[in-house]
């Protein structure tokens, strides 16, 4: 009896866990505003995982119903410039700790794909080449 009760509890727990959105619902499920939680990079050879933009990066991602996407994020270790007008070296350091892009997206075959990205807008190291 206890065993059956335990199995029932486990079954109900599993059914109530969040599940991936079905492909047909993916379009509607991505639309909205998303706040960045983490960015990690994994080196497949060494298996090393790093927080490439610090422990607490900040950023937002917006998918619109009309098929546009906007993203901007910055690392948590950014040092503000000493003056209102940053020096060239400060600009370079600030550039290294940010990512921004915008363009269109589409949902096909259960996958979200980048469409036409606005030229010259995708900024930040490692932000442009997405497969």
């Amino acid at each position, binding site marked *: 009896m206890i065993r059956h009760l335990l199995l029932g509890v486990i079954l109900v727990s599993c059914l109530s866990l969040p599940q991936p959105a079905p492909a047909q619902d993916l379009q509607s499920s991505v639309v909205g*505003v998303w706040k960045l*939680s983490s960015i990690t990079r*994994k080196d497949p050879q060494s298996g090393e995982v790093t927080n490439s933009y610090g422990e607490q990066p900040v950023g937002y*991602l917006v998918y619109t119903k009309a098929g546009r996407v906007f993203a901007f994020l910055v690392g948590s270790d950014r040092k503000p410039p000493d003056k209102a007008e940053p020096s060239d070296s400060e600009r370079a350091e600030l550039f290294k700790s940010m990512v921004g892009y915008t363009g269109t997206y589409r949902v096909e075959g259960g996958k979200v794909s980048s469409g036409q990205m606005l030229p010259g807008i995708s900024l930040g*190291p490692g932000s442009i*080449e*997405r497969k």
Partner: protein
Amino acid sequence: MTEVVGNRLTITATVKSSRDGREILTANVWERVE
């Protein structure tokens, strides 16, 4: 690849390292706010 589970959206991708050209797996995790 983009996956939505509950209020969490995860984007995984393969990018080339700007340092040495090696491929690196990235995972960006986002939480829905609106």
